[in-house]
């Protein structure tokens, strides 16, 4: 029953996601446009001593950006459900709280992966075009697994934030703070060498252990060969995913206490 219940919850959220398929298609197109505009503008502006080809460097970063934004969307829905008391219905269903929580975390991450897949394919094509390197099946699996961990952690994080407040304004503010901190202190847009030379030590530390940095750099490791693959980055992502999946489950349990 546990697996079935989790699957049912996932089905609901994924169906809901596809009700906005034209909006999703529009957003993916915008992300792809961003990528190509970056390619034209920034590749010629960025110092080649720092990043040899910014277009190729940024493509995996943009994939992570899109994955993060899409996986974070589930939190907005959970918060809307709290405000409209739809959460009462979800909590009244004959399923366990942890089944509900994990179903939603997984649904959020699967939605992130679906949203991100055209961008990942574009990234693979671009890197192949510029470097003639295509990852092996094992490397490709590791990339997807890495992205899945990022998506789980992100989805869990957004649900936890959504369940912590009944105010939409507060949720949006928290989401904004999380976005800015995680993107600013990360290697999504610029390499670690630049961060180390320009940011204070605490921010460098955040950037190093930031799951977005780990996700982007692990993809780059297999697609561009730099930075090198690190098991610790994978472990970092595993901890991020597990921690926020558990926090989301705990938050759903706590939702009953109010």
């Amino acid at each position, binding site marked *: 029953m546990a697996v079935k219940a989790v699957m049912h919850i996932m089905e609901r959220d994924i169906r809901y996601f596809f009700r906005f398929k034209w909006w999703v298609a529009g957003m993916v197109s915008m992300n792809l446009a961003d990528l190509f505009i970056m390619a034209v503008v920034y590749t010629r502006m960025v110092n080649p001593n720092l990043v040899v080809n910014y277009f190729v460097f940024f493509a995996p970063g943009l994939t992570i950006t899109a994955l993060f934004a899409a996986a974070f969307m589930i939190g907005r829905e959970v918060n809307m459900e709290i405000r409209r008391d739809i959460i009462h219905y979800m909590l009244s*269903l004959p399923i366990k709280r942890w089944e509900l929580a994990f179903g939603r975390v997984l649904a959020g991450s699967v939605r992130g992966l679906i949203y991100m897949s055209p961008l990942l394919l574009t990234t693979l094509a671009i890197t192949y075009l510029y470097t003639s390197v295509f990852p092996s099946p094992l490397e490709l699996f590791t990339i997807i697994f890495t992205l899945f961990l990022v998506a789980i952690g992100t989805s869990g994080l957004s649900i936890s934030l959504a369940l912590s407040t009944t105010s939409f304004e507060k949720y949006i503010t928290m989401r904004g703070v999380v976005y800015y901190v995680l993107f600013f202190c990360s290697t999504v847009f610029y390499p670690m060498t630049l961060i180390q030379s320009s940011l204070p030590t605490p921010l460098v530390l955040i950037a190093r252990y930031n799951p977005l940095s780990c996700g982007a750099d692990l993809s780059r490791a297999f697609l561009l060969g730099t930075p090198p693959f690190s098991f610790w980055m994978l472990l970092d992502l595993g901890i991020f995913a597990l921690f926020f999946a558990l926090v989301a489950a705990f938050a759903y349990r706590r939702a009953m206490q109010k």
Partner: protein
Amino acid sequence: MAPIIRTVNLTKKFGSLVAVDHLNLEIEEGEIFGFLGPNGAGKTTTLLMLITVIKPTEGTAYVGPYDVTREPDKARTLIGMAFQEPKLLWVSTPWDVLDWHAKVCGLSSEERRKRVRWALEELGLWNERHKSIHGFSGGMRKRVEIAKILIQRPKIAIVDEPTAQIDIVGKHRIWNMIRALRDEGSTIILATNELYEADVLSDRVAIIHKGKLLVCDAPKKLKDSILGGDVIEVVLEKEVPSKIVEELKAINRIVDVLAVKPNCLKIYLNQAEEVLPRITEFFMKVHMPVKSIQMSEPSLDDVFVHYTGLTIEEAQKR
């Protein structure tokens, strides 16, 4: 036989507000139990505690053998609820909402299709089954909400204000479906502020006001328990001074007089046929022309008035 639901000093506080105050109730298996009270009386809060959506501040409740505070997951396997406000994602369609609900409740795919179709047809929503709920009226959304419980057929079915926003034909259809659900083996908890609905549907009624249980019994017994088994409603041409009310109370066999409106009195009495001529005579004597006079048996409204001193409309305003 042990009751299927038992609340023991069930209490819920929101800050300094006591929404439910040491509620002790027992609901028998297979009955339609009316939970009657004005808006804000604590009915929905009690039901949300039974379905384990909110946690009691004090005391507990047993759903079947399960303590809602200790085994909420098990309690929820026995109970289902149709909410007062439809809890629906507005971009969904009735078919999707109900099919998914049935799936989560563990119905097989064949049974699911059968029951969803039946409920949609019975509630007049079959032609709208693939339309977005966003464009539905309040009554249509309410029917989708009710359909959930009719499809689920839980051992204990809670229906919170099931016919609010529903037209009179729809009301009767839903009442029949609630009765059919009971006949199939479900115990029904009917929360309502519609006295007539509670009267016609319930085997027993509990009246709750300001979070406290005032009385609980069969509707007939509650009505019979009021001193002065008959009620005469008198509408006068002008406002009634309180002095007249007091004088009226002094007439033999009149038990109580309540001014429901400035020019309308409800007189609770015994042997109305004998006292009625004396009442008309009295009004003539005090020069208070009578517009209309009506004799009836007490209703649950009168029971509510008897126990709270307020009509349900007045209680709602407060």
